[in-house]
């Protein structure tokens, strides 16, 4: 345990150090990459609540990532054009304030999580994987075909949204916002895992009949876990859209769902910091391998295969040893 904690501290400080170092050396693009790692890691932290704690293999988490993205895109584009989102029965204006956008992203994701979860959790196993994938596809095609918010073209925001007291256009300040949210997400997940809810949820993953026999409904546990999971991933989606100042249906694609899952696996399933390591490795690979070969996806695929086949604890498992409880 202590070894894993040490590894975790190194990971978090490494990310922070990379960004601060890049800032000191005036390498803004490196800060952008570090920001991307922090945001994608947060998306993975979200999925990890469902996947790692709850054992729910959701191949549709791009839904939440996309909802977060579009929450930002829709609110900011209306603010940008000074046109209200809704005029009847009451007026809703757009906004360029990050905290408001985050709140909307989280609430919208919670609502989607409630609906999708309530329906999908009636199934289990492969059927659950597939029905979440199907919901992802529904959102994807809806986003592409619906002309109001750009369809396939997506929505562009010219200036990054604001956060009171900070200049979000400055890469390092935006990085710090994302970093703090990632740290919060990690902290909350850690507490969640040790809470009453966490105990019941992880027990339900291992043995649903046992949880039922003590009078707790696994369905409700999983539904809440799915919602919480979606909320965190939705927040990450809003941040990702702000990083790019752009949102498009690609955020809803099933490849996005797959990639978020890849972060978790690369890092190590059930490891709190798995998604952070996974996202960092993914981004570094994209840039190192991408520079070496046009066909870098082959190497990414091979690496992923090796991790799944031979290093089941993921990268953290290799470094910190396999002492974490996981089926």
């Amino acid at each position: 345990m202590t070894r894993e904690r040490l590894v975790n501290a190194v990971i978090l400080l490494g990310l922070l150090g990379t960004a601060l170092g890049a800032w000191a050396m005036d390498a803004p693009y490196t800060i952008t990459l570090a920001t991307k790692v922090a945001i994608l890691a947060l998306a993975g932290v979200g999925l990890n609540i469902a996947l790692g704690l709850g054992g729910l293999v959701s191949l549709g988490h791009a839904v939440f990532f996309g909802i977060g993205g579009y929450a930002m895109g829709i609110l900011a584009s209306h603010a940008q054009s000074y046109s209200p989102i809704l005029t009847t029965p009451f007026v809703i204006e757009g906004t360029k304030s990050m905290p408001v956008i985050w709140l909307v992203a989280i609430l919208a994701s919670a609502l989607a999580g409630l609906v999708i979860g309530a329906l999908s959790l009636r199934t289990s196993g492969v059927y659950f994987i597939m029905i979440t994938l199907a919901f992802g596809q529904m959102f994807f095609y809806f986003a592409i075909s619906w002309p109001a918010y750009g369809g396939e073209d997506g929505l562009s925001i010219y200036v990054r949204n604001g956060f009171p007291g900070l200049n979000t256009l400055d890469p390092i300040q935006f990085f710090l916002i994302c970093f703090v949210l990632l740290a919060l997400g990690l902290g909350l997940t850690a507490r969640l895992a040790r809470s009453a809810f966490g105990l019941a949820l992880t027990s339900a993953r291992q043995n649903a009949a046992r949880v039922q026999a003590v009078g707790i409904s696994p369905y409700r546990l999983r539904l809440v876990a799915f919602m919480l999971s979606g909320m965190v991933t939705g927040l990450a989606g809003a941040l990702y859209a702000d990083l790019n100042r752009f949102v498009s249906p690609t955020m809803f694609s099933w490849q996005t769902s797959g990639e978020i899952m890849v972060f978790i696996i690369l890092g190590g399933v059930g490891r709190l910091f798995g998604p952070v390591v996974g996202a960092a490795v993914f981004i570094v690979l994209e840039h190192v391998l991408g520079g070496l070969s046009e066909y870098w996806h082959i190497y990414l695929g091979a690496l992923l295969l090796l991790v799944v086949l031979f290093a089941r604890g993921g990268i953290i498992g290799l470094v910190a040893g396999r002492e974490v409880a996981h089926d």
Partner: protein
Amino acid sequence: MSAVLFIEQVLNGLQLGVMLFLMAAGLTLIFGVMGLINLAHGSLYMVGAFAAAAVAGATGSFLLALMASLAAAAAAGAVVEVLVIRRLYARDHLDQVLATFALILIFSEGTRWIFGSFPLFLDIPAVLSGPVTLPGGIAYPKYRLAIILAGLAVAGGLYLLITRTRIGIQIRAGEADREMIAALGVDISKLYTLVFALGAALAGFAGALVGAIQSVQVGMGEPVLILAFVVIVIGGIGSIKGAFVGALLVGMTDTLGRFLLPGLFGLMMDPSAATTVGSALASMLIYVLMALVLLVRPTGLYGTA
């Protein structure tokens, strides 16, 4: 809407369904016997199409191209099974999803590396090109009719294989009880490789058949893969009969939805908006169908828990 048009659309739905069945049969067989969820099935479809296009380009023979597609996809399937897949049977679905996701990346970029970024060409054989007039004055492409017949023939062959042959008995035994058939002295790893190669060959065959009327390009497998998953989930994973019914259901829903929905919305709103909204909804329709089926029957139409 004329009856002729409607019948033609039903034929189109049937053809799409039969095509999907070729894909879905392999997927569901592999799941039923080995308990494996294989995302890379679409890559085998692509391998079949590329092999067919390459052989047709070199020899000019469609028949040789079809045989090449079967051989190449089966070989690719067998190699992948021996190297990777067999290590996944005992794993949970998560590991299977990720490992086969990795295989997609490798297959796609590998194919692009070998064949380049431009689509390949595969033509319909001369005997089957052009339309034929069916009773009732319906002009319908011969090649699509041939696909329907080929697909039904494969479905029939598969039925016979599973119900009447020794290997079929082993496959059914494998679905029921894995330890049992090992105890009976069947070489289980050989059986698994064989089943996987069979599923792969069906996918490759579908790829080649469709390659002649579509574009043979990298990434062609994934949209079909997702449709095939929808099919087997609707039908009940592991059930060949379910795959057949599911495939026809999805084929019909998709084709008729695309055809009827815009018109239906046209009754309520102006035509331009109706086509946009109608086709948006049509593209989501099969997923809605799948969600509905799972809500009523959480393990699909013919699935067992």
